[in-house]
């Protein structure tokens, strides 16, 4: 039996985190870790009250760093399979057992929850839709792979994958399409699973504002370019030193 865990990065999610934890607990009983990214509200307290194990950053470092803290903690505690889900309640956890089942069967190394393969759910804004389409095309061109939801943070992966993410080369700003391109190049099998997603209850987004969006696109293209000029085994070799 493989050791499994769920990591949930959360920043100022005091209003949602307890519900997210309760929803997850209804579908699975695997170890659950909340990565509180230096929240200014009562996220930590609410998560603890809901019975979760909380890892708290001393200050806010961003979504990517919170994810990496989860990867490092899972590696430190010898977990074999890791699932990541957002702390804002966007991701509906009913498919979690299916994620674990598919990864455990060895069908793939990374499984991404796609809102576009599922039935219904919410419709992203036009700008996000354009971005998703652009990154879909990039993945298709570079990796010859069909990924319908490259910006989804609802993912499940094997230890071999999250071990690589514990290295400083992990793009902590925005781990999205760049990661998928990199994993494909490294020979990992990346697949998708249909999931249902809700809109953020408070309408928050990581990519709000023109400057933030421009910076997002810039870092994404730079990161993809760096991945392309790096040798296929570069990140694997680095991860072996961890």
């Amino acid at each position: 039996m493989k050791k499994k865990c769920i990591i949930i990065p959360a920043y100022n999610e005091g209003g949602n985190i307890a519900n997210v934890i309760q929803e997850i607990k209804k579908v699975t009983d695997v170890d659950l870790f909340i990565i509180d990214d230096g929240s200014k509200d009562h996220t930590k307290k609410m998560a603890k009250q809901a019975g979760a194990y909380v890892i708290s950053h001393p200050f806010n470092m961003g979504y990517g760093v919170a994810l990496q803290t989860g990867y490092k903690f899972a590696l430190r505690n010898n977990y074999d399979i890791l699932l990541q889900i957002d702390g804002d309640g966007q991701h509906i956890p009913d498919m979690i057992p299916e994620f674990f089942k598919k990864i455990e069967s060895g069908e793939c190394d990374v499984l991404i929850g796609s809102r576009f393969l599922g039935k219904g759910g919410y419709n992203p804004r036009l700008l996000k839709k354009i971005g998703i389409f652009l990154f879909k095309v990039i993945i298709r061109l570079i990796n010859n792979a069909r990924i319908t939801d490259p910006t989804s943070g609802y993912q499940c992966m094997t230890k071999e994958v999250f071990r690589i993410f514990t290295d400083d080369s992990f793009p902590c700003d925005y781990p999205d399409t760049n990661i998928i391109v990199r994993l494909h190049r490294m020979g990992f099998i990346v697949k998708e699973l249909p999931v249902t997603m809700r809109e953020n209850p408070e309408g928050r987004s990581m990519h709000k504002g023109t400057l933030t969006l421009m910076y997002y696109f810039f870092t994404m293209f730079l990161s993809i370019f760096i991945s392309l000029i790096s040798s296929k085994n570069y990140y694997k070799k680095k991860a072996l030193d961890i």
Partner: protein
Amino acid sequence: MTLLQKLFGILTVLTIFWIIIQLVKKGKLREEYSWLWLLTGLILIIVVLWYDLLLIISKLIGAVYPTTTLFIFGIVFLILLSLHFAIKISHLTYEVKNLAQKISFLEAENEQGDPGDKPVS
């Protein structure tokens, strides 16, 4: 270059040297960074004492006036210095991140024990 200009140049460089040494002595500037500024001062002294070198370099890079050469090298130096500090800041950012993550683990384990021992449901 007139004697007065030479004296002014040397005096300026010696003042810079003295400030750098004092900063290192008081622990406000690490030795690691002081060498760069001392080297800059040394190059300036050489240029002041051996003005012909500046003329030769100007001829080599095709500059009409020696002052242009000084400005070009000054700007290049400042660009490289900025790059050096950007590298340092990036390195420190990684270190702060890794340190903060380690503190988070230790604090969590100290408060809540080993994650394997804690029943989730």
